């Protein structure tokens, strides 16, 4: 069941990861180049299905944290995430059996692949967000009892820090954020070390495959001059993300951004091509909620994806611009992300939004005003 990930997969994977990033998670372009160069130098990456892991295997997820704008400018050295992994292995006194993404949306779908290529470790086809989120405690791993600590943070000069806050993942996030700023606004991390049995219990499975499926569906539709959204909807059919709903088609009429507590918060408005309907989006790095004519139609953690109306290319919240022609789709997330425990950590309330979570397949199909 394991398979080899090669350079040929990367364009589809990056586009799919950008869709799953729901506007945030960082542009996977730099991540894709990092993986491509690593694969060219060290060879392809072995991807393991979670079912293939031994119960007592040690899986150490790896990621990048920090400001996407800094990554555009200060490119990684390439060895940072491996340094973080090694620092955590040394701290634990055990070697990892595999690495894994903590976040399948955006650039963090790519970082574990760099680690895997450079170390020869396999990467597990799963992650702890099932999308992208802005903070380290927003993980199904943590929701279902796996602590993020101890974690290791590494910079490009080879320096590493180990942070251990016991079971308090929120405090770990806060300390790691401070270290990241000292490291220049971007750092690489290894955290949520866990047993193979915990991966099966707490991770969202097969999300690398999901990102590939999404990216491939959009590419193939373009190649056949078919409707990419319809293609994507049918490709999602057999996955844990089975419901895609087109929430809106229109043009962006307003984008407003502000920085609050270190996050890029804001809202965007759009008007339908017919001029009849209005869309409002609220985002905090990622898109959090889509309101159509004032009513919520898709709410975090379900995916609110803003796609270019022509080619279905995902648009990040940073590049939303007045006048863009967009299709906004909502995609359902797996049950593991919709439990009360999960919603308490990354549901609408966790972002200070006054909406109740309802599945997108319900909100889109049964609007409250009939």
């Amino acid at each position: 069941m394991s398979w080899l990930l090669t350079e040929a997969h990367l364009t589809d994977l990056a586009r799919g990861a950008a869709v799953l990033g729901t506007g945030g998670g960082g542009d996977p372009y730099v991540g894709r180049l990092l993986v491509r160069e690593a694969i060219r130098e060290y060879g392809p990456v072995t991807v393991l299905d979670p079912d293939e892991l031994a119960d007592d295997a040690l899986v150490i997820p790896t990621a990048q944290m920090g400001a996407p704008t800094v990554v555009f400018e200060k490119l990684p050295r390439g060895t940072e995430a491996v340094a973080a992994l090694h620092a955590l292995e040394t701290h634990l006194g055990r070697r990892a059996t595999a690495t894994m993404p903590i976040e399948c949306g955006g650039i963090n779908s790519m970082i574990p692949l760099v680690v895997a290529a450079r170390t020869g470790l396999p990467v597990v086809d799963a992650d702890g967000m099932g999308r992208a989120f802005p903070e380290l405690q927003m993980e199904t791993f943590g929701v279902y009892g796996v602590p993020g600590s101890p974690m290791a943070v590494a910079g490009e000069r080879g320096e590493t820090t180990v942070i251990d806050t016991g079971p308090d993942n929120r405090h770990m996030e806060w300390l790691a954020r401070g270290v990241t700023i000292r490291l220049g606004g971007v750092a690489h991390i290894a955290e949520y070390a866990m047993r193979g049995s915990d991966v099966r219990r707490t991770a969202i499975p097969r999300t690398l495959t999901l990102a590939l499926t999404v990216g491939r569906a959009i590419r193939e539709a373009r190649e056949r001059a078919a409707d990419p959204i319809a293609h994507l909807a049918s490709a999602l059919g057999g996955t844990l993300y089975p419901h895609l709903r087109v929430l809106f088609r229109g043009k962006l009429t307003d984008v407003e951004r502000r920085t609050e507590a270190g996050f890029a918060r804001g809202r965007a408005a759009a008007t339908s091509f017919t001029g009849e309907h209005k869309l409002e989006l609220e985002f905090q790095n990622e898109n959090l909620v889509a309101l159509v004519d004032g009513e919520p139609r898709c709410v975090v953690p379900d995916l609110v994806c803003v796609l270019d109306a022509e080619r279905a290319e995902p648009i990040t919240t940073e590049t939303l611009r007045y006048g863009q022609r967009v299709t906004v789709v909502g995609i359902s997330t797996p049950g593991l992300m919709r439990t009360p425990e999960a919603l308490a950590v990354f549901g609408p309330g966790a972002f200070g939004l006054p909406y109740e979570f309802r599945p997108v397949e319900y909100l889109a199909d049964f609007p409250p005003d009939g």
Partner: protein
Amino acid sequence: MRIGIDVGGTNTDAVLLDGRRVLAAVKTSTTEDVTSGIVTAIGELQRQHAFDPAAVRAVMIGTTHFINALVEARRLAPTAALRLSLPAGASLPPMVDWPRRLVDAISGRAYLCHGGHEFDGRHIAELDEGELRKAAEDMGRAGVRSVAISSVFSPVNAEFETRAAEIVAAELPGVAISLSHEIGRIGLLERENATVVNAALRELAAHIVDGLASSVSGAGITAPLYLSQNDGTLMDVDFARRYPVATFASGPTNSMRGAAVLSGLDTCAVVDVGGTTSDIGVLAGGFPREATTDVSVAGIRTNFRMPDVLSIGIGGGSLVTGEPADVAVGPRSVGYELTAKALVFGGDTLTATDIAVAAGRVAIGDPERVAHLDPDLVRAALGRIAADAADAVDRMRTSAEPLPVVAVGGGSILLPDELAGTGEVHRPEHYAVANAIGAAIAQIGGEVDRVYAIEPGHRDSVVDEAKQEAVDRAVAAGASPSTVEIVDFDEVPIPYLPGNATRIRVKAVGDLQLGG
């Protein structure tokens, strides 16, 4: 009086303007050496409307020569890319994502050295002057003739690029040096790519600019010479010599701005109908709306400011097929073979031009050859073209307000007098030379793009400071101070960073100050 010249791949167009009045307009063929085509065009202007060369106050040239040189990978100088970023960035060296063919065409060599800044102004590493000298020596041995220097966060602090340039210049006298902070904005790989492309074009730029200057002075014109840039503003000859990359998207920009002047509209959609495609863009306040996504040129990712243009496959040479009920126009086209293949020119292919002739929209070729066409088919084909154009214009609109449409280009006869949902189609005089007119009326601009740390309560003063710097830059570049205004302002907070780090972009433009 001023002269505007557009040097395209096929045609060289020139206009003589008095204010915004067109005194003469000519179309000639572009020549291999570029300059003799310009000499011919100026001579034709003189024949059409005799003028005193000394009365010409400025000559503006728009050209696709440099972008074509890159696309065709010819006449590019052996180039080195020197990046100051170590220990960061080692895994993705300069030109890492370029097509191999272009790296080879510029004999591209990448060097990574210590340096660069953090987002907050700290140094990633100190500059190592010995390391830079060693790199320069290696470039010298390899026969490098042009060097591009980039440094992390140089748009915020350029000190390392400037110092590295001094060291390289001391080691390699006579080698051209291009600095990334003078060329691009935030986004290291894209800015660096643009800088390397610029470096590779420097020798060609020197050669072409000298040629342009001598062909203009050869015509007895002593007025200053300008080249038009991507954003519809001008640069002087010395600037063009150093920054040829800034001309890359001037073609569509000039055509759109020319259309604005010819029609007297400064907020409108412009439909430029060529032989194979129609390009649709939007002017707001006289300037083209910019594309917001990264733009790839010849397979190289850049973040140039390019106009947002939507192309559809309809032009004068488009093939017309099917029956009245299901007629199709384009995207296949006879292209430059129109005069051999279209029915009205004695060919055997039904093209959009034949339809226009059959409908009596234009009299070219032999109308008898299309007299047999089914009037229903002619009506249906024109309806198809009108519907596609209306749809494309609608997609470029940003509000439900009616947006006037200006049609330019040789194929604009295909468009109706009115488009559904948008209203009247303006067809200005001299529509065929809109590019040259756009070049002639270009303005002078100044730009700032930087990350600022905004302290609470100080936002206004930071914004004012940025705007003033953009205005100062425009004036320094030759704009008349009383005409300078801010035409673009964008503020993007950077998440996850303290101190309200915010990226601010400002653009100011003004009319060219014409000397005595």
